[in-house]
């Protein structure tokens, strides 16, 4: 079966959502992953959107942003952002999704400055809600394109914290949330070694291999003992994704 890298990323992201969980949905691909999970294995999942929305049904149309009118129609709650962030800080969010421009092996993300903040080579948009979601969600999943220049040994700037410099760092700095559980890229899925706080290759997507992932990774790749091929999206999942994004704006 033919599918795009974004389609397998959406399917993999949806599988990270457990039924009944409260999910901070983020932007772009995770918006579709939430809708997919709702229609398959996690019908009781609840989505939080930082603009000030809570939903227990997927939006009726493709969302370009979380504030699109279809996301408000039929919402459980339309409110202030601070209420959503308050739920996050009190520990009510089981799973948060964020994207990133630059990532390191401890799961730290940079979406602020490439180079020095005083004279950046590239000024990226900034945190938005990502730093809050990464710091305060009980579990974090990162979704991003896999390129050697993006997956680096150490990020230039920590916008959204992973495990900092390794095990024990989050506790030392006082962070409440659990940190990253998975990184889903265009090539593979990483899990995390809890004893070191380090990313470990869990599975590579069909068409990829340990070697091809290593070639595109800027740190010394660690490979899980039971590394395997990522399960491709099922026919049902693909059909739902294509119904959600009929023109392939996000997924093609």
């Amino acid at each position, binding site marked *: 079966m033919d599918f795009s890298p974004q389609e397998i990323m959406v399917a993999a992201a949806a599988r990270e959502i457990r039924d009944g969980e409260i999910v901070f949905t983020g*932007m772009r691909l995770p918006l579709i992953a939430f809708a997919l999970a709702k229609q398959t294995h996690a019908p009781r999942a609840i989505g939080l*959107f*930082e*603009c*000030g*929305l809570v939903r227990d049904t997927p939006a009726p149309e493709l969302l*370009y*942003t*979380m*504030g*699109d*009118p279809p996301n*408000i*129609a039929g919402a459980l709650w*339309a*409110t*202030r*952002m*601070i209420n959503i*962030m308050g739920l*996050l*800080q009190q520990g009510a969010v089981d799973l948060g999704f964020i994207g990133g421009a630059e990532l390191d092996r401890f799961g730290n993300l940079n979406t*602020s*400055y490439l180079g020095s*903040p005083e*004279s*950046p*080579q*590239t*000024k*990226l*948009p*900034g*945190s*938005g*809600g*990502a*730093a*809050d979601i990464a*710091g*305060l969600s009980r579990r974090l999943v990162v979704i991003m394109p896999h390129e050697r220049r993006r997956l680096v040994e150490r990020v230039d*700037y*920590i*916008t*959204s*914290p992973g495990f*900092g410099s390794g095990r024990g*760092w*989050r506790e030392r*700095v*006082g*962070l*409440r949330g659990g940190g990253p559980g998975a990184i889903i890229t265009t090539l593979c899925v990483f899990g995390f070694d809890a004893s070191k706080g380090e990313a470990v290759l869990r599975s590579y997507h069909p068409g990829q291999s340990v070697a091809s992932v290593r070639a595109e990774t800027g740190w010394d790749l660690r490979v899980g003992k039971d590394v395997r091929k990522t399960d491709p999206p099922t026919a049902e999942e693909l059909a739902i994704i294509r119904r959600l994004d009929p023109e392939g704006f996000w997924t093609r």
Partner: protein
Amino acid sequence: MSKLTTMGDAVERFVPRASSVVMGAALESLIPFAAGHELIRRQVRDLTLIGPISDILFDQLIGAGCVRKVVAAWVGNVSAGLGHNYRRACEQGIPQRLEVIDHSNFTISLALLAGGLGAPYLPTYSLLGTDIPKTNPTFRRSRSPFGGEKILLVPPLQPDVAILHVQRSDEDGNAHAWGNLGISEEAALASRRVIIVAEEIVPRSVIVSDPNRVLAPSFKVCAVVCEPYGAHPSPAQGYYNRDHEYYHDYHRWTQTAEGNAEWIGAWVAGVKDRAAYLEKLGRDRRQALRLKEHRYAAPVDYGY
């Protein structure tokens, strides 16, 4: 008392050079683009822009040379990617250098909430361990006096003016907004003055029939502007949808400084007001953004 006026008059009187201005408080919806374009046409300089994400409005004001400082969580183009003008300003000083005070969405909410509460600061566990405090020198690291936990202290922001786009208002600035509110209430309460830009002006009786839907007390409001489609290309729930293509056109057009100048010429400087902008946008395009269906809320009974 009627505060109804034109956009030009509201901006002229209440947003002088070097003002600090909150815009885009609802995040991706109800962004006051019409007000932002009037600031560009009048070449109001040295502004401090305050907001969570603002979508492309901050990028436009930066590219037009109106901005000295940005206090925000995110500046870019939500559905298309990076903000080219923001990049050029930060990386090359084009059209001018920009001071950036970084926030997250939570801390910008807390800063405005503290401003509205009249509180000295608000504490949070967010942003611990991040580099954001290095590029926001206003934060302080501390420990809770109760449990001793590490915390970050966020000082208040009290902007000169908040420009808020809403669905409807009376002439006095008693305004109804619905949908996700983002930091609209916090912005209104924290700011010294509020400019309300409304899709339509309604009688006071409509507003007081549903006081729970009012954004903030109208004694904060200094001007009310009626500007239908004034949030375009962002959406206004119950009025029109988001014009996604507009954001992507903007992204392509503004890749170079020359392209940006052309874009401003075509869509801002070259149109004298919002009515002219809407004419340029065209009937077909507005038609395409119309609601597909109405979804009215059930009435509530405030009887006693």
